[in-house]
């Protein structure tokens, strides 16, 4: 038993910042029109009053927020005008994570995020700021029942698999991230266009020598700033994922990482919906990838790190089966032997990319014919992209797993348990039907609206075999027409 507890006063700051962020967008246009001339004075006064009001509200809210741990439940009271009381019983709690932002760390505080079963945001709770020791106390107090997982953690007699990613690997991860690709692309574009940017005529004039020099300077500056941005990206990855440690306990995966912001993530294994191996083009070249999982439920107050959770920032593709074997034996699998779409489906993949470019070509042709080369130059890129997507697509189903692979930007290879699928859809248009092709679309649950995985224009037989694995009614997957009169399982 303990008395009602308040949050640390720093919670006022978080509340203040949050409400400021909420109204900032709506207020901006008003400010733009009033922050000038004679209305300036009123505008400033208005802003000051508003800020004071927000601060007052934040303080008030802080005063009205209290929590108690009694016996076997956490009891939270909150709300200024509408009082809300929430009781969360210990055995409903799935995980308790301590997260520290920069501000938290300055004051020696922590945020406590409590996730329950169920995917309802309103059932979860979070304490915005408490002293770190208090956070640990709450965690300890509530943990008792939550599947005895802490005991397991403290049980030193058993070795749990655990590993920490080194800074070298993190640097590599940052250097080959999606942003890095974007930056490399920009660099290449600038480099290849450098000559076109400098108008040809200027070369002919002796006086333009200086001008071209200046232009070259600009190019150099731009290029070097891009390199700097890239370097910052690398550093940022290293800071964000510093000391990335993954540990597998009996029923959970547990991750900690971050140099400035320290994060903990506890993922109950039974809530994992899909395991996805993702490689962008650059990483694919070097045989690198990362592994992430889609997790159902547990909304941490709209935080961006929602349902997709990295298991490792970077690993070699070859290591994936071994990694899963160690940390996620539930999803342990060999490198799946995916069935690729046939050659006759290539046109559909190419067409998808081509369609947009063709529209662009037509539009540009009518609007600005002198720029026609830009979309025309994009044609081979998009054709190549379609070809890549076709090369990437694949499907494989056995009695437990469904493996799909596809490309949006990076190549994603997903492994999902058949029984986790929310819906299984097969789509064909009449061209597909004539050519025995089909599109598969499966849905899984995550903590937002769910996620669909779609792979187009596969061999129809492969999709049907997958659906037959998934379904409990064999006859609908068979070829021959069935007898209407005594179809089994029918309802009137």
């Amino acid at each position, binding site marked *: 038993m303990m008395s009602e507890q308040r949050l640390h006063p720093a919670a006022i700051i978080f509340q203040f910042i949050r409400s400021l962020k909420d109204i900032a967008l709506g207020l901006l246009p008003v400010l733009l029109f009033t922050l000038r001339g004679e209305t300036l004075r009123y505008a400033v006064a208005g802003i000051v009053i508003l800020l004071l009001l927000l601060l007052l509200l934040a303080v008030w809210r802080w005063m009205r927020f209290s929590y108690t741990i009694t016996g076997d439940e956490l009891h939270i009271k909150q709300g200024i005008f509408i009082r809300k009381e929430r009781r969360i019983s210990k055995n409903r709690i799935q995980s308790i994570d301590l997260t520290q932002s920069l501000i938290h760390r300055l004051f020696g505080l922590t945020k406590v995020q409590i996730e329950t*079963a169920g*995917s309802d945001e309103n059932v979860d709770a979070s304490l915005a700021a408490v002293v770190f020791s208090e956070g640990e106390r709450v965690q300890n107090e509530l943990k008792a029942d939550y599947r005895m997982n802490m005991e397991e953690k403290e049980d030193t007699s058993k070795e749990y698999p655990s590993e920490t990613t080194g800074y070298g690997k993190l640097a590599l991860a940052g250097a080959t991230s999606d942003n890095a690709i974007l930056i490399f692309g920009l660099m290449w574009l600038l480099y290849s266009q450098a000559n076109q940017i400098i108008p040809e005529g200027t070369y002919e004039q002796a006086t333009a020598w200086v001008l071209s020099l200046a232009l070259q300077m600009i190019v150099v500056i731009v290029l070097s700033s891009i390199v700097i941005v890239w370097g910052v990206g690398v550093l940022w990855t290293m800071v964000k994922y510093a000391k990335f440690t993954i540990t597998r306990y009996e029923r959970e995966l547990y991750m900690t990482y971050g140099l400035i912001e320290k994060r903990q993530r506890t993922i109950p294994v*039974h*809530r994992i*919906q899909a395991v996805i191996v993702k490689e962008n083009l650059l990483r694919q070249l070097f045989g690198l990838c990362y592994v992430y999982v889609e997790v*159902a*439920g547990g909304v941490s107050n709209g935080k961006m790190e929602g349902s997709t959770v990295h298991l490792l920032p970077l690993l070699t593709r070859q290591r994936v089966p071994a990694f899963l074997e160690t940390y996620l034996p539930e999803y342990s699998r060999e490198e799946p032997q995916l069935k690729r779409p046939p050659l006759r489906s290539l046109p559909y993949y190419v067409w998808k990319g081509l369609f947009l470019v063709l529209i662009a070509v037509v539009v540009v042709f009518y609007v600005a014919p002198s720029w026609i080369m830009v979309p025309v130059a994009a044609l081979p890129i998009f054709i190549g992209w379609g070809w890549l997507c076709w090369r990437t697509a694949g499907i494989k189903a056995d009695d437990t797993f469904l493996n799909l692979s596809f490309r949006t930007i990076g190549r994603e290879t997903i492994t999902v348990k058949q*029984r986790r*699928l*929310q*819906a*299984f*859809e*097969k*789509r*064909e*248009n*009449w061209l597909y*039907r004539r050519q025995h092709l089909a599109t598969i*679309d499966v*849905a*899984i*649950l*995550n903590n937002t*609206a*769910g*996620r669909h995985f779609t792979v187009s224009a596969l061999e129809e037989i492969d*999709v*049907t075999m997958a*659906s037959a694995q*998934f*379904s*409990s*009614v064999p*006859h*609908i*997957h*068979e*070829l021959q*027409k*069935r007898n*209407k009169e005594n*179809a089994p*399982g*029918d*309802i009137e």
Partner: protein
Amino acid sequence: MRQSPANHIEKTAISAWRWTAVLFLIIPLILVIGSVVTYIFFSWPWWLIAITALLFVIDLVLSVIVVPMLRWRRWRYEVFEQEIYIQHGILIRSRTIIPMLRVQHVDTKQGPILKRFSLATVTVSTAATTHEIPALSDEEASDLRDRISELARVDEDDV
């Protein structure tokens, strides 16, 4: 998924859809009126009227006459012990299997037009997706709803 589901939806659905389409004809109709008005008062070119009229006729033929027929023919459903099987889509035929285990709730709903034809739509929701079986007769819809919710009432899986 090679066999179509066994059951058709109610045939009166075609009429219901036709009436809905007739109501939506108001949009091309407004365009026609607009083009006539602009022709008379602002002397915009006459061929605008021709184009909008053509659009009106095309819309009439497609959405009122052709599409409801095709749509009815394609819409099929079948409810098994452990899954729901739905087929729909005119240009792109899609067949969906929803495991009973994943069904979260089943609703029936009825708009004013469906009500006139005493039809109702059954909506099946999973945690991630929503599926419809449109235009069943009233009793059939509520029977189906009850049956599905009966079948879906298995022990809650962990997630």
